[in-house]
């Protein structure tokens, strides 16, 4: 009746020998990994968006621990998460502003008329193969949502022919910037609220002809700005965000309303 014990003993013997082998291997081939890497990875948003320029959140954590610094900032994580990450590393988090994507165009259906009836593939790059513009202005947003498809955070939508960016949802990862064939998407610090919503470098009269809110290069904003923060080049105003103080003087003098205040819109979630 003790035969039943034999297989039990044999199997236990196997288990002992094999676990001994495993124990030996784990000691022999042990690689030390900083526990802080796992700790940091757990604090990151796990979106793996690549917005920091690295392969993903794990790569970000590895680099942060290796360099013992946060010179690369996760654009997606909020300030609290980043300071928690800094705490793990034992350093102070830098107070960098959150960047948001900004559309340098306001060519809505009312402002820039449709030049043609586009019936092809609903994609900006595909449309660019057939025509330089679907609107009268050749610089304008095509409204075919290539950037919306690139956004991983549901922060963009097409409204009235142009892209509208929800700056609350935008994490500043910058994935949409190369998705725009017209190079109309730029990153700006969220605290800078003044934006020149135009990218048309044609002469004033020609720009005005194709869009109601085009920058005509009249120089009024440059003359008004007390902070040397706005300059007109090639009939197009551009803001130096390092100098802009949100005084809104340029917004008030702009005769075509192409300089606008961003970040104060109220977003209502659609039901």
């Amino acid at each position, binding site marked *: 009746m003790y035969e039943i014990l034999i297989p039990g003993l044999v199997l236990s013997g196997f288990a002992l020998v094999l676990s001994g082998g495993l124990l030996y291997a784990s000691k022999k081939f042990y690689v030390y990994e900083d526990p802080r890497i796992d700790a940091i990875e757990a604090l990151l948003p796990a979106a793996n968006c690549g917005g920091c320029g690295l392969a993903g959140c794990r790569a970000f954590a590895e680099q942060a621990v290796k360099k013992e610094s946060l010179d690369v900032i996760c654009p997606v994580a909020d300030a609290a998460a980043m300071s928690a990450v800094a705490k793990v590393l034992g350093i102070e988090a830098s107070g960098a502003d959150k960047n948001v994507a900004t559309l340098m165009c306001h060519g809505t259906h009312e402002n820039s008329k449709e030049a043609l*009836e586009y019936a092809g*593939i609903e*994609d900006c790059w*595909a449309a660019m193969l*057939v*025509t*330089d*513009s679907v609107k009268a202005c050749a610089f304008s947003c095509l409204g075919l949502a290539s950037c919306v498809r690139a956004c991983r955070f549901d922060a963009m939508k097409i409204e009235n022919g142009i892209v509208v960016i929800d700056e609350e949802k935008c994490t500043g990862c910058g994935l949409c910037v190369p998705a725009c064939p017209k190079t109309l998407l730029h990153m700006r610090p969220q605290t800078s609220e003044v934006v020149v919503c135009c990218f048309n470098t*044609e002469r004033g009269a020609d720009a005005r002809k194709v869009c109601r809110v085009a920058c005509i290069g009249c120089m009024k904003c440059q003359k008004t700005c007390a902070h040397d923060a706005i300059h007109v080049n090639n009939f197009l105003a551009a803001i130096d965000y390092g100098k802009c103080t949100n005084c809104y003087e340029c917004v008030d003098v702009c005769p075509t309303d192409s300089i606008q205040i961003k970040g104060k819109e109220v977003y209502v979630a659609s039901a």
Partner: protein
Amino acid sequence: MLHPLKTFSRGGIHPAYNKFSADRPIEYGTVPERLLIAVNQHIGRPLEVLVKKGEEVTRGSLLAKSSGFVSSNLHAPAAGKVEKITRFPQLGGQIGETIIIKTENPGQSLKEILDSETPQSLRLDALEKEEILKKINEAGLVGMGGAGFPTHVKLSPPQEKPIDHLLINGAECEPYITCDHRLMLERSAELTRGMLILQKLFGGVPVTIGIEDNKPDAVKAMGEALAGKRGLSVAALETKYPQGGEKQLIKAILNREVPSAGLPMDVGVIVQNVATTLAVYEALVYNRPLMERALTVSGNLIKNPGNILLPIGTPVSFIMNRFEIDAARVRLLLSGGPMMGRASFSFESPLTKTSSALLFFDGDYVHRRRENPCIRCGSCIDACPMGLPVAQLTESIKGNLIAAHAKGDIMDCIECGSCTYVCPADRRLVQWMRVGKSIIRREN
């Protein structure tokens, strides 16, 4: 059939040909009030503009100079004054640099201008190869079938690629277009001389002109013109789209297959369009740069479709006046044929060296259909003259997951539009293929 007509082996379609203007002789156009000359009408390096605002130009004066080997000169088709140089919408949808010339004698007939230019006697046997190429280069010749590739480049293959056969493309397989057909009928003697010049360039190799059999009169006229000329022959081809595709034409006439990613010269062939061959003749015999071209004006909006010779740079609106087209009724303006032509959005866009046709359609003729999901029927694969698995390739392009081994296939697409024509789900297959090509080009 006892003697089956020559054709390419796979794919191809039979669209409605609608060659309404086949029996209309090529009219002589007149010089419009303003010529809008697009600076870059060719494939290759952009040109360097030589004229300034306010400058006087005469017929044939150089407006822009080629800036490299793969480039092509641009000349003023009529005397006048440069009004301005600006960005302007072109036929085909792009917006490009354009030289606007206010002409000196608007309304002057092209016949009058052309009759005043005298031919010089040309002795073929005394011509040097370099001299022919130099004249073609200076005249700014480009492939007039639609691609716009500089002719002198095409005619200068590298040493290691010997050419043993020249083909002249008179297939004109696109629906509606009839200008090459008319050129073959009306100017067969000059075309023959053009073929002889090209033949001379390659040391007397055989030259064959391929013509689809829906133009029996052109086959007959060219046969008569070429009779007794050594090495020159006519090949009647089956009427099937895209018979006039370069690779299809080579397969049909010579039964040679151009390798993937290869050029016709890889199989010892060079193909030239009928209009280009005539332009070669004019460049040598009249010393005339490429300044006007014959084109077909047709479409369902036109009561009297026709073929017309017009200076390059003539705006579409001028042609619409002449053919009495009501701008308000035009829903679709096509430059080129309905298969490969491009839609345009401005009636002021000017003709270029490559505009073979202008087609005007109204709302009754244009159907805007929604793109539906692929039903895996495989019609596109059967129709593809290049034998590509179109459905699979377009799906991979759509998902932005182009497999490395599929890149060659995508680049082999000739954008003929046969797949889109047959697709029962109205998928924009050619446009997807073009998206794929542009993605691959951007990566490289």
